[in-house]
């Protein structure tokens, strides 16, 4: 520990502390420009100069890089220090008149205008080197540097041309204290830290605000460290040392007794059906978009707003987007009617806007659902029986100007109607997961023709699959709402538990075996068995079937040239008898 006196106040700090850090502990403010706590001190702006005396020797030093010494006496605002500081700030005012931080410090120091020649009144760069140091020391890309010297010094990429070395991380702009760096990518590469837009913005983030557990993660594709092997600023600032860049994705093998597949569903992409204008017209939102908009943790804090920030005065909700539609998915997605009606309720409650629901049929089939439907009608939600045919922003009448128009055939009135609204919400249907095929193959289960996983029996085995020990739960098996999913999941869990709890496993009595007397030791069967259930006994010179491994496909039986391989329940005689029997009927 080192004892120092700073502006008359005594303080004990650790060895290696800089004057600036010591001053910070005493809440003494020393202005800085080129200093950043995460970067090595550069000592170039000379604004943080202070007067420091040690052992009778007094000097003007920069506080950002000068380490305190035992018995040092520091005056942060002595006449000498202030004189130099003021002049340096005044000179910077002339060099970069548009730099806000310089203006602020000048104001604090009581400087109103500079006496020196101003070359460019719009200049913002104060040549503090934070960008260059960030690019070199932190990012490791070395895409920008100082070029020229003295009064001609500027920050630039090599040869003053857009640099291939630049990884587009925008860290330089982030560190720039004066916003002198403007980012524009000429190679069309991804800009990692695009702070200007909503959505995923940084390489470290929590997945969503309600995420459980609420733990941030590093997005490897966006993280600078995984591009240049440098940076690691997060490691520096994380006091509990919780960040480990060396961590790798791990493939773990876990032995289990049974598996429940609950891979869920994909939402129908409304862009596929261009008539709804999703992704093309403003204020046409998918069901999930609207959920995000409504969410108290969402971008508007739960306020339902149009893109321009206004509150909507009328909202249309379209049912069966991608469902019950021969062009897309033929099935009913089961949940859309109810969530569309929930949206209507939320819109009414939060904005009081007029709500139109465009439906084919209302399928309020669950407990309390029909009552909810009735309640909505009492809440003055307008139900129009007719599937939304088109959403357009082309106005045909003055009332439609600046609005979205939903076109539909009202089947109750027998009219084609045009309904102008401010916002359109789509009731997107449910689809099987894109990779359902792959999963099905992996687990040896089937998919029904629409792509949802196939249960063993629609009535007698709704959570079972064709493979023993593999069960289904939720929308991966077919569209269903939350209560149904919970019920199915419970059933699947108990089936799985029952199997695991038994501790033993019953094999179907259809395994193969080999008649040792007939076996000619050709080993054909050994190579055929997909389960390596057949081994060759060298001593006895015959093939042997391990019954626990045999799944009973019978491939070996059909292939055995000696007729030594036989399958319980499917031996040749039995098969022949069956064939005879099948053909004996006239």
């Amino acid at each position: 520990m080192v004892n120092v006196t700073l502006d008359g106040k005594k303080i004990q700090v650790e060895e290696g502390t800089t004057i600036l850090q010591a001053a910070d502990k005493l809440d003494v403010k020393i202005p800085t420009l080129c200093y950043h706590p995460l970067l090595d001190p550069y000592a170039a702006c000379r604004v943080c100069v202070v007067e420091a005396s040690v052992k009778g020797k007094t000097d003007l030093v920069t506080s950002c890089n000068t380490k305190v010494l035992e018995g040092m006496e520091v005056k942060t605002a002595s006449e000498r220090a202030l004189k130099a500081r003021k002049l340096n700030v005044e000179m910077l005012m002339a060099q970069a008149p548009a730099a806000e931080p310089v203006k602020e410090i000048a104001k604090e120091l009581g400087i109103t205008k500079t006496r020196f020649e101003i070359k460019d009144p719009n200049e913002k760069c104060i040549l503090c080197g934070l960008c260059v140091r960030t690019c070199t020391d932190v990012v490791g890309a070395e895409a920008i540097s100082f070029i020229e010297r003295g009064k001609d010094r500027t920050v630039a990429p090599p040869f003053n041309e857009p640099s291939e070395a630049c990884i587009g991380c925008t860290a330089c702009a982030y560190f720039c204290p004066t916003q002198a760096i403007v980012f524009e990518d000429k190679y069309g590469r991804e800009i990692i830290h695009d702070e200007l837009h909503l959505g995923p913005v940084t390489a470290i983030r929590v997945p969503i605000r309600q995420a459980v557990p609420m733990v941030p993660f590093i997005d490897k594709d966006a993280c600078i460290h995984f591009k240049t092997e440098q940076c690691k600023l997060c490691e520096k600032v994380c006091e509990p040392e919780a960040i480990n860049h060396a961590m790798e994705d791990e493939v773990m093998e876990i032995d289990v007794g049974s598996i429940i597949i609950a891979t869920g569903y994909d939402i129908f992409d409304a862009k596929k059906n261009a008539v709804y204008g999703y992704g093309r017209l403003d204020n046409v939102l998918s069901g999930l978009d609207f959920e995000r908009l409504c969410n108290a943790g969402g971008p508007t804090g739960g306020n339902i707003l149009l893109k321009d920030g206004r509150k909507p005065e009328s909202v249309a909700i379209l049912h069966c987007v991608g469902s019950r539609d021969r062009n897309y998915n033929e099935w009913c997605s089961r949940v859309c009617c109810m969530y569309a009606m929930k949206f209507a309720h939320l819109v009414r409650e939060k904005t009081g806007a007029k709500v139109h629901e465009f439906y084919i049929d209302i399928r309020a089939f669950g407990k309390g659902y029909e009552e909810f439907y009735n309640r909505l009608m009492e809440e003055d939600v307008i139900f129009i029986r007719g599937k939304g045919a088109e959403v357009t922003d082309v106005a045909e009448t003055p009332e439609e100007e600046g609005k979205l128009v939903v076109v539909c055939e009202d089947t109750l009135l027998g009219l084609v109607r045009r309904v102008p609204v401010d916002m359109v919400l789509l009731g997107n249907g449910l689809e099987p997961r894109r990779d359902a095929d792959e999963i099905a193959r992996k687990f040896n289960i089937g998919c029904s023709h629409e792509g949802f996983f196939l249960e063993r029996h629609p009535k007698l085995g709704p959570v079972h699959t064709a493979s023993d020990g593999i069960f289904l739960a939720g929308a991966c098996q077919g569209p269903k709402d939350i209560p149904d999913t919970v019920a199915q999941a419970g059933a699947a869990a108990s089936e799985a538990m029952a199997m695991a709890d038994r501790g033993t496993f019953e094999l179907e009595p259809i395994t193969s075996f080999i008649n040792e007397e007939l076996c000619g030791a050709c080993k054909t069967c050994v190579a055929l068995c997909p389960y390596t259930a057949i081994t060759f006994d060298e001593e006895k010179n015959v093939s042997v079937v391990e019954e626990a491994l045999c799944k009973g496909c019978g491939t070996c039986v059909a292939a055995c040239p000696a007729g030594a391989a036989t399958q319980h329940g499917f031996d040749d005689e039995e098969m022949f008898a069956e064939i005879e029997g099948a053909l004996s009927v006239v």
Partner: protein
Amino acid sequence: MDSANFEPRIVGFLCRWCSYTGADLAGTSRMKYPPNLVPIRVMCSGRVDPTFVIKALKEGADGVLIAGCHPGDCHYTSGNFRTLGRYTLLQIMLEQLGVEKGRVKLEWVSASEGDKWARVVKEITEEVRKLGALNWDGVVEQTKQEVAECADEKVKI
């Protein structure tokens, strides 16, 4: 007996996981297809020994359908590939014997393809109907004769 009134008898060997379930689905889906095919369930199409086909033809079947999982989807990983190999060889042999190609068929029908199952049965029934009844004894006779001729000419097969 003209072909229009002829009702062929066809034996089907169906794998338990895909085709049999697919046939089940066709049934539960109330799909209509000819009743000429008698299904025999095996665990895997890989169990279908070519002798089963010969046996069926010998016992009076006019046609045989082997149905299994789609390639890559076999419940037993690779059984249907074995079937495919055996079926190709069997076709060559049956041709040499003088059995028309259309009488024995291999089809892939998955558990979700009830409609396909119905279609496949329809197709094979129609095809075999056109071919008429299989004269198995004739086939055997002719084969014996050919063998004898070969023996006379002292040709070694």
